[in-house]
């Protein structure tokens, strides 16, 4: 079966975007816990972040503990480059 493999760079950029939204809205919600507009915004982007992290783990290795499921016989967590290295982020 042909699989549509996403571009690694583009997927990582997208993860950075949706994660930033989640991070920033989270701080706003800490001091505005009843803001409905912010709550909706958070929910929407958190979903997209979870999906993108799963997608990334499937093709390019896990970025988080929760997506570190690995069907191979090798521990993928240490396989891919670390974020401060070339090709790592």
């Amino acid at each position: 079966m042909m699989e549509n493999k996403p571009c690694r760079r583009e997927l990582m950029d997208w993860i950075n975007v949706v994660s930033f939204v989640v991070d920033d809205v989270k701080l706003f919600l800490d001091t505005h816990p009843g803001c409905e507009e912010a709550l909706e915004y958070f929910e929407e982007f958190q979903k997209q972040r979870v999906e993108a992290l799963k997608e990334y783990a499937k093709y390019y290795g896990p970025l988080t503990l929760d997506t570190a499921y690995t069907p191979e016989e090798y521990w993928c967590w240490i396989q891919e480059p670390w974020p401060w290295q070339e090709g790592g982020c």
Partner: protein
Amino acid sequence: MWNYEKRLQYPVKITHTNPKIAQVIITQFGGPDGELAASMRYLSQRYSMPYKEVMGTLTDIGTEELAHMEMICAIVHQLTRNLSVEELERSGFDKYYVDHTLALWPQAASGAPWTATYFQSKGDPITDLHEDMAAEQKARTTYDNILRLVKDPEVCDPIRFLREREIVHYQRFGECLRLTQEKLDSRNFYAVNPAFDSCPVK
């Protein structure tokens, strides 16, 4: 507890090494207004903070500062990788190199080691929040100073991101201060320390 996420909060991709500017930028790792001091300040202060909004803000900003520390370290690492002996002598990096080779170590641009005396954890919400707001402005000024010295757009880009976060954090701590004052006696905010004296909840 914390879990590691294997990415930077904002990407750092630096092509050209520059050990001279690395010695300036390292101050945001281990200097007086750096990211390590910021994280330790907020994560230390949160235990005695009596209000849930402020506990949350200190936890989440304290966590984000760790991600900023990682970005600064990535910048310094990428600016100093694969240096030759000639390059590090020429740039004045030899004084750092002799003690740390090309490793990361938390120090100020002056070479002074990181110390917990860079921050305070006072146990009084109004006092601690004023310290936090001042800290964000001091870090913003440091980034402004760094940006005047940096010419490489690949270095400027993540530094600008970090500078902007200082402004957002300042805003959030300002809201925390307002929330704190709303819970206190408006005729005299200093009548009690809500983290120490028992006082009626408003």
